[in-house]
């Protein structure tokens, strides 16, 4: 047996090789390189750096916590609804989202659990939105003295038609006014023209030096008639999430009430992960979106319909996501192609 094998090997002596085998990287080492590439991609995204606004990292990080405690929201050319028609059109907007529990992730599913501090922006409340805000939110209580309000624009004046309660009776009225700002927080609608039951009362009130609040009581959380002006508190204009902003300029335009908001901090808009000009980006910090927990988030929200403007609703976003789709990217970001609000199957 040994002889046979020796003979065999002898036959091949001249043809065999010494096998200078180069050991290849192990399969595990190759996967390690992939991990490093993904980690580098992630790190290079620098979601905490937004121009001058750099979000600090807390000391504590873990596999379920990124260590970044702030979340920013960027939006351009989008309709943002709080609920139903209550909302505004965003020309551009940057805000900081803050959870009501500081060490917990933001829960997008519950708009009542976080607030938004606007850092810079330009938004417009359409007549329909103002109508919804007044009817469905501010004056939506049993003893309200205003009801069935309809809002429209005439030139540079806001026109409010509806019913006002006086001495137990509902009287149709029209108020046309322009806005000013008080302390950056209050929008003051100054009555320029008042009609009661179809007849103009403007001249009479002016001549008799009667202020509207001597005749009518209009008082609600977020709105109060003082003199002949209705004071609207921007902090109470909208249902949760609490949106805090200061107004620099207000103007009535054909599109609605345009508010140019005060710049509190400058932040650079991020590059989107898809080519769109209407979007919301939520960036940095940790966030719950349904059963997903995003760490050091990069979440782009765009409409499924590529040629349309984003129409997003905070209270309906779950439906919008479940009737759309998501793309999870190698760099750890995600793009949600949401169903626009108007197409939602309710």
């Amino acid at each position, binding site marked *: 047996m040994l002889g*046979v094998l020796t003979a065999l090997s002898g036959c091949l002596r001249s043809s065999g090789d010494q096998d200078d085998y180069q*050991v290849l990287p192990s*399969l595990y080492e190759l996967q390690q390189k*992939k991990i490093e590439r993904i980690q580098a991609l992630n790190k290079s995204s620098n979601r905490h750096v937004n121009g001058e606004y750099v979000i600090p990292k807390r000391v504590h990080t873990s596999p379920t916590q990124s260590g970044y405690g702030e979340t920013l929201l960027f939006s351009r050319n989008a309709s943002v609804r709080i*609920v139903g028609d209550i909302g505004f059109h965003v020309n551009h907007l940057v805000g900081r989202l803050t959870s009501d529990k500081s060490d917990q992730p933001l829960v997008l599913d519950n708009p*009542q659990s976080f607030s938004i501090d606007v850092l810079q922006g330009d938004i417009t409340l359409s007549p329909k939105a103002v109508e919804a805000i007044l009817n469905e939110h501010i004056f939506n209580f049993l003893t309200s003295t205003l009801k069935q309000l309809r809002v429209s624009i005439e030139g540079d004046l806001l026109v409010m038609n509806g019913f006002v309660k006086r001495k137990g009776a509902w009287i149709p009225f029209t108020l046309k006014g322009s806005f000013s700002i008080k302390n950056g927080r209050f929008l003051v609608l100054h009555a320029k023209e008042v009609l009661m039951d179809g007849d103009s009362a403007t001249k009479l009130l002016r001549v008799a030096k009667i202020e509207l609040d001597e005749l009518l009581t209009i008082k609600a959380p977020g709105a109060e008639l003082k003199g002949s002006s209705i004071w609207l508190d921007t902090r109470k204009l909208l249902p949760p999430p609490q949106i805090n902003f200061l107004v620099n300029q207000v103007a009535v335009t054909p599109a609605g009430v345009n508010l140019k908001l005060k710049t509190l901090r400058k932040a650079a808009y991020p590059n989107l992960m898809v080519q769109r000009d209407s979007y919301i980006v939520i960036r940095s910090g940790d966030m719950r979106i*349904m*059963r*997903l*927990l995003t760490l050091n988030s990069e979440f782009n929200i765009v409409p499924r319909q590529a040629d349309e403007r984003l129409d997003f609703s905070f209270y309906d976003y779950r439906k919008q996501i479940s009737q759309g789709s998501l793309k999870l990217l190698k760099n750890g970001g995600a793009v949600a192609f949401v169903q626009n609000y108007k197409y939602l199957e309710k």
Partner: protein
Amino acid sequence: MTGIRWFVCLILLALSHSAYTVSPEINIQQRQFEFERENWNKVRLPKGLASVPRKSHDLRHSGYSGVSMYAQNMLLNYTGGIEFDIASLSALLEPTQAGRPVELNDIRTFSIDIVSGNLTLPEKTLEFLFNRHVLNYKERSLRNVSIQTDADGIYIDAEVRLNKPFPRQWLRAQMAGHVSLDQQQRISIDIKQMKMLNMPLGKPMQMLDLSLDRFVTLDRPGVKLKGRQIKIDLGVLPPPRLNGRLSRAVSTANGINIQFSSPQGIIFDTPPISSNSYMWLQSGDLRLSNMIILNGHLQALNVNPHERLKFHLYSAIDQIAGGHVRINAASDVIAYLPSVIP
């Protein structure tokens, strides 16, 4: 009604008159959210895995250690050439460190504990496993292994380098053997026939009571030549570590079929999308890059519904990025994956 109750009712009425009424849409949404939040924390373990303890849960953790998984009629690809053809598989993905989610980015950080299953290692996988993984070292005694199988056995064609005192020359050898499970639950390839340079050696070796391991050395993690048997256990595979109690190993026309069994039956929920080829992660927390899917309910399917699912474990992030994800109204996550990574 008593006087105090009237008083309380009047106070509540007064308050309701001065505070705005919450929109019905907001009320509906809040109720839906509360229902959904309970859903997030629901016990989702498959029946039969009740012994898995649950720690406290919050917005970042479901409290379950490990991810319960069921796979049906799919291909599980480790890296390029290592692919399992899975008929069915029930397993628990266990993080190596307690309290962490299972991180698909990093195959070091978890093990796959198979409870029951029926899977096949195809011929090409066996070849790749030997050539690229097991025999990837300088002093190897085997190279250029090619393998064929059928219901009768396994046929190995390779170049063999004999131990000293023989010259270290490469010789072409063919081996034929029978596949079975040994008493230590290892795959055992019993070499019945051997030829070298077309000269049969099996009978002479048997007659002289000479074992193959005297001439050829094969002793690597998970693979050992002992006598004339090649013993293979689950440690032969690269990470993630595969654990499980093998109950059967046979050769078939498609490769080596191995089966796992457990005295406890595991019953998984029916996943949301009806398909005959899928992977269903029912409970536990899974991390993909920067995203954690909490408390399971993730189903993976082929983006082409007419194809079997092929999951690339070593390139999971790339594969998921090449597909798309949907989240249904019940918050189930459904990942549609391409077979080929773009």
